[in-house]
């Protein structure tokens, strides 16, 4: 155990380190010795070489999701992709209707974009997921009206890792001729995505969640049937006018290489990561009052989101200073609101405040997981010994029956 290097990184859903192979490729596109040219320069070899590199990367991204490279638009990341997809489609199809459907557990990049569209006069329905984090497609169908022009549902949730049935939603949306956008920032390279089979019109991607660089992402825009968008960034007409701005060759090359590696290693990575995640869960689940947040089966391999009842999340994070994890208790940021995702699952505030997200990745080891299990169990035990709520639970007091003197 002493051989484990601290702190242990278990926050792979926040970001990942760049794979060495990716970093090596990127370094070839920076300096005067490398291919530093502007891919938009048509008049000389510097530009042509850079353009070739961008084309290869576009192919690599398209290959992972079985798409046509002409369907890939480079952006600065998944947030920009979500903005371009949702605002772009809403603005373009405004004449067809003004209703949008999304889910309460979406990433803020989707929710805040929808809020902005509400200010512009669109109507947005925010679906409530089931208690396991998955959406009931019948409720989605029921929320649809003749004015619905866009449905946006994330593939894998960033907090709880649950995988939505985008195939079924896609069938419904296509049938009703509603544009379907999927935020796949947390799923690409972890869950199979086949754009030939899926009836998804727009899909957002990020590089830094799968061992690529930060600051680069892509939006998949379907060609058949053709999906139109109103550009959100205007300028030199790059990316067929959908997203102007000089292409960041080294970032794009990095994203391409990261997606190539993901395609080759996804199956073996997933097996190993799932084994580690199950080992972590098995090491923690037998303690009293431990709850898994979100469906365990329909979940990406590396995610474990778990609540330790009667222990407050921020104090637990403090006890776990040797671990890089994140808490559903937003006490860590200025607001005192617990995670809106866990709240949307119907988790009570105590359990939402008591949650920790562990996300495991390519470089996590068995030794790190074993160390983590030991550390977490000791910390929970220590904090429960400090917790008046734990005493009350042990005395058989129903906390809901207590009149709290809240501020």
């Amino acid at each position, binding site marked *: 155990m002493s051989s484990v290097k601290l702190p242990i990184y278990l926050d792979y859903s926040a970001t990942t380190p760049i794979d060495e192979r990716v970093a090596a490729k990127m370094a070839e596109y920076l300096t005067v010795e490398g291919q530093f040219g502007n891919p938009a320069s048509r008049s000389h070899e510097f530009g042509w070489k850079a353009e070739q590199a961008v084309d290869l990367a576009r192919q690599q991204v398209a290959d992972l999701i079985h798409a046509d490279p002409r369907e890939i638009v480079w952006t600065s990341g998944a947030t920009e992709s979500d903005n371009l997809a949702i605002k772009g489609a809403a603005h373009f199809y405004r004449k067809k209707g003004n209703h949008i459907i999304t889910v309460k557990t979406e990433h803020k990049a989707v929710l805040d974009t929808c809020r902005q569209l509400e200010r512009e006069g669109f109507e947005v329905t925010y679906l409530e997921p089931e208690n396991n984090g998955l959406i009931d497609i019948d409720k989605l169908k029921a929320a649809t009206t003749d004015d619905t022009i866009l449905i946006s549902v994330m593939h894998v949730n960033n907090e709880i890792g649950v995988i939505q049935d985008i195939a079924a939603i896609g069938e419904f949306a296509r049938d009703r001729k509603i544009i379907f956008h999927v935020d796949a920032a947390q799923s690409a390279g972890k869950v199979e995505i086949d754009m030939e089979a899926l009836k998804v019109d727009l899909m957002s991607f990020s590089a830094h969640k799968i061992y690529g660089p930060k600051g680069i992402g892509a939006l998949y825009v379907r060609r058949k049937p053709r999906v139109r968008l109103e550009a959100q960034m205007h300028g030199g007409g790059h990316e067929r006018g959908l997203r102007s701005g000089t292409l960041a060759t080294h970032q794009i090359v990095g994203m391409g290489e990261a997606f190539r590696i993901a395609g080759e290693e996804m199956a073996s990575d997933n097996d190993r990561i799932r084994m580690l995640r199950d080992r972590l869960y098995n090491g923690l689940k037998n303690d009293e009052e431990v709850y898994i947040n979100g469906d365990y089966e329909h979940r990406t391999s590396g995610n474990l989101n778990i609540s330790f009842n*009667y*222990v*407050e*999340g*921020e*104090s637990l994070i*403090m006890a776990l200073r040797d671990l890089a994890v994140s808490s559903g*208790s937003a*006490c*860590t940021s*200025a607001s*005192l609101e*617990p995670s809106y995702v866990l709240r949307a699952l119907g988790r*009570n*505030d*105590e359990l939402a*405040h008591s949650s920790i997200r562990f996300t495991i990745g390519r470089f996590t080891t068995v030794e790190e997981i074993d160390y983590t299990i030991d550390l977490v169990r000791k910390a929970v035990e220590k904090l429960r*010994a*400090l*917790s*008046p*709520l*734990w*005493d009350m639970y042990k005395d058989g007091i129903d*906390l809901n029956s207590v009149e*709290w*003197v*809240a*501020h």
Partner: protein
Amino acid sequence: MAYSEKVLDHYENPRNVGVIDDDQSVGTGMVGAPACGDVMKLQIKVGDNGIIEDAKFKTYGCGSAIASSSLVTEWVKGKSLDEASEIKNTHIAEELSLPPVKIHCSVLAEDAIAAAIENYKQKNQ
């Protein structure tokens, strides 16, 4: 978030954790709510001379909340009820160098003292 040395010290080595067996000489205050992420339980044991001779706490909350309650158990001991009620959140926040977002922890600790004293007084009217 960076914690001050004193918060870390109280968090790592909390003083006076526990429960005092309830009787006439004990005042118990419980403040906060699980939904807000903070619950503090503070108990004081008052001697015949009106001096607080023991204090214990249990806290569900962030490190600053735990440190605030640990600190006040140290401070109230040896004080009269009137002296103890002079302890204000500003003193606690200053002693622990709490950042602005954590001031509510010191407010809660002040409330806990007041609630414990109130409970003792009710019992001993």
